[in-house]
């Protein structure tokens, strides 16, 4: 159990049988009263947010969560197959459990998978990945209007907006936290 004095942003806890991450904890105290921590949480499975206020001294159960380093092997139908780098065990996850991560999965990509009570609950790709453009309209020579963009579809099906000079077949570095194009990479 974790009491209010140890409340921190980033704490992983279990509330009503669900795993949450604490996204905010603010000490509040009315002028003539009891101290509280006003907290916000994000559900680690559904992403839903929750607000709760705890009296000083109250506590919450710590969630049994471990992060495992895994490698993406291949896709088999609707399932994505990963291998645990530590135990070499394989893990299959259906696409709906991957969230945005499936936009970035290429063979051998190293990801972090969060395991709660033995169950995988989320897949975290690295902050930056490199992907190939498989479809994109040809660039218009001489068009240097700054800020103009066009859509480009990556090998994973993910669509990003890129500057007009970028061509099909090029490789891009993508920020997985925003889903956006960062720069070109030479391959």
């Amino acid at each position, binding site marked *: 159990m974790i009491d209010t004095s140890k409340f*921190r*942003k980033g704490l992983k806890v279990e509330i009503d049988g669900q795993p949450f991450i604490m996204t905010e904890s603010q000490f*509040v105290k*009315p002028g*003539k*009263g009891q*101290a*509280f921590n006003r907290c916000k949480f994000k559900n680690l499975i559904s992403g839903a947010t929750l*607000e709760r*206020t705890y009296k000083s001294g109250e506590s919450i159960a710590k969630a049994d969560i471990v992060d495992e380093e895994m490698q993406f092997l291949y896709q088999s139908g609707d399932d994505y197959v990963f291998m645990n780098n530590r135990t070499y065990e394989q893990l299959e996850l259906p696409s709906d459990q991957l969230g945005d991560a499936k936009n970035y999965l290429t063979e051998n990509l190293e990801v972090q998978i969060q395991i709660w009570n033995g169950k995988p609950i989320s897949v975290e790709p690295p902050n930056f990945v490199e992907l190939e453009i498989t479809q994109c309209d040809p660039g218009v020579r001489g068009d240097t209007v700054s800020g103009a963009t066009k859509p480009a579809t990556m090998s994973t099906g993910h669509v990003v907006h890129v500057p007009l000079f970028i061509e099909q077949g090029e490789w891009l570095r993508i920020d997985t936290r925003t889903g956006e194009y960062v720069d070109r990479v030479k391959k």
Partner: protein
Amino acid sequence: MAGRYHHGGASDHLEDESAGLGLPPASPRPDDGDLVAGTLLVDDDGPRLSEWRLLAPAHAPATATLRRLASLRPRLEARRDFHHFLREHFTSRGFLELETPTRVLNPGLEPQLAPFAAGVGSDGSTRYLITSPELHLKPFLSAGYERIFELARCFRDDELGPWHQPEFTMLEWYRSHADLDALADDLAELLPLAAEAVGRRPDTAVTSCRLDRGLHRESYHDVFHERTGQSAAELDFDERQRLFVERVEPSLGWGVPTLLLDYPVDEAALARRRPGPPGGPAEVAARMELFLCGKEIANAFDELTDPDEQRRRHEADRETRRAAGDLVPPLDEGFLAALEHGMPPSAGIALGVDRLLTLLLGLSSLDELLPFPEPAGGPELQ
């Protein structure tokens, strides 16, 4: 002139308090960061140091704290202006500035306050750091002073967060032969001037809260019911406070500052009781708080002057403390004697100076204002 010598490739310069006067290097060159004194020479080749001598070598690079202190100057200047304004404002309105002890026998007995112990007095009993200067200011009212104020450094343990520091500056002012309305008028006059004192326009001083449009008054009972759907009178102390911090407090003081009036009697502290407003509880505390942008800024009492009632409340607070295993300071007989001698009807208010200034400057927590804040919590977890 004297200052710190900075290496900067082509733009080595001596930086003094008047900031960053660029100078070509003198030869031999001081080490980066050394404090040097030199003579400024201005001729056709531009300004430069004609000679220099070492005042203090920089043996170590500036720490994060030192860099922070250097960057904090505009906020510290605003703080100086703000404190100066407050003193000037009250002095020019006939208030006498007082300084009362910081280390006392009785730091305030309210069960929710955690005082710091501070050694032993000449009588052998424990001393504490004040949680507010209140108990030493009120005797002045009994002694015939009608308008007094103090800018006091106060101390409260176990209070640490974006808007709480265990050590903070509080302004208290008291008016005898006056009630809460007089203090509400004081606040309405003070707030726009306070904004101007630190270079802010009162109509835009605080995000989403205009200070030049007077104060909005709400009764505790009504606003509690409106925000929570529950009757404050039917909830126990903890549950009522939980809902208050969760739903009520964050909603107060937007648009214009809010004055919250008529608190439940068990939150009276040192306020007198009075009959409740129509449609509310039978009896309420004659207590008022000021909120800006969801933050409590000031707390005012129509002061309890009845010595017997005051003694009973203090004894009850001590009993609560004893039962909770907290420190139990003795009764402050000096304060009680002042009430027994006869304290005129009076109103007093305590205002969080650091909090108000933090809001006026558009900062988001006290540690952005204070040069040496107590760090809140540990590092963020990943």
